């Protein structure tokens, strides 16, 4: 139930907000250095680190993506007719949230900590 609602919420969130962000990013990049600098100024501080908006949008989008990916894979498994037993179904539903949260943390740990040392 919860995971099904999350699947729709993350999917529709990325379809609207995510689409506009992706198109804005690509359009700014194709527009030249000034257009890209204007895009970056919304999400970064002057030295080039992410500002609060950048972190909220970035973490929100990656968490939405990983959750939608995991619950999407769950739906593909359910399409085959497997995983409908109550206990197993509940375990897989919980796992989508555990895995998506873990992948989001690992992603940002790499972006913030891992890259500067490697």
């Amino acid at each position: 139930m919860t995971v099904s609602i999350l699947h729709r919420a993350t999917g529709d969130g990325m379809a609207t907000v995510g689409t506009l962000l992706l198109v804005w990013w690509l359009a700014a990049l194709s527009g030249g250095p000034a257009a890209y600098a204007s895009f970056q100024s919304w999400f970064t501080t002057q030295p080039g680190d992410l500002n609060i908006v950048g972190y909220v949008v970035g973490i929100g989008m990656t968490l939405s993506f990983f959750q939608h990916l995991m619950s999407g894979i769950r739906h593909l498994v359910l399409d085959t007719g497997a995983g409908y037993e109550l206990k197993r179904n509940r375990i897989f539903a919980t796992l989508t949230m555990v895995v998506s949260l873990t992948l989001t943390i690992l992603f940002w740990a790499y972006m913030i900590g891992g890259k500067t040392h490697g």
Partner: protein
Amino acid sequence: MGNGTELGRVRGLGSSKHGSSHWFQQRLTAGANIGLMLWLVVSVARLPAYDYVTMVTWLSSAWAAIPMILLIVSVFWHFKLGLTVLIEDYLHDETRVIGTVALNFFTVATAAIALFAILRIAFAGVPA
């Protein structure tokens, strides 16, 4: 639901006969999106920096521009199918028609901007 008569179908009741096509395209693009989105997340994460020259150099390569074009087509078709279901679930009168038309315009317009931007970067090449 409709009783299956010609009049019932004219009034929009009963099956539109397009259900399995929607279902299949949803799964097809879902499968493609797994590979394409993981490619994007890993590629962007592995970039050494996010300044203008680094980004344009990356995206002007065929190895990035072509998957990005495929991603736009697959992801945008997938979200168009998903938002269609949202509209069908929650809008029931004339707003459903308005919503469906608006969704089609939104999808095609944003896809056109994204594809044009990618091709422009790819064909213009890295700035000197």
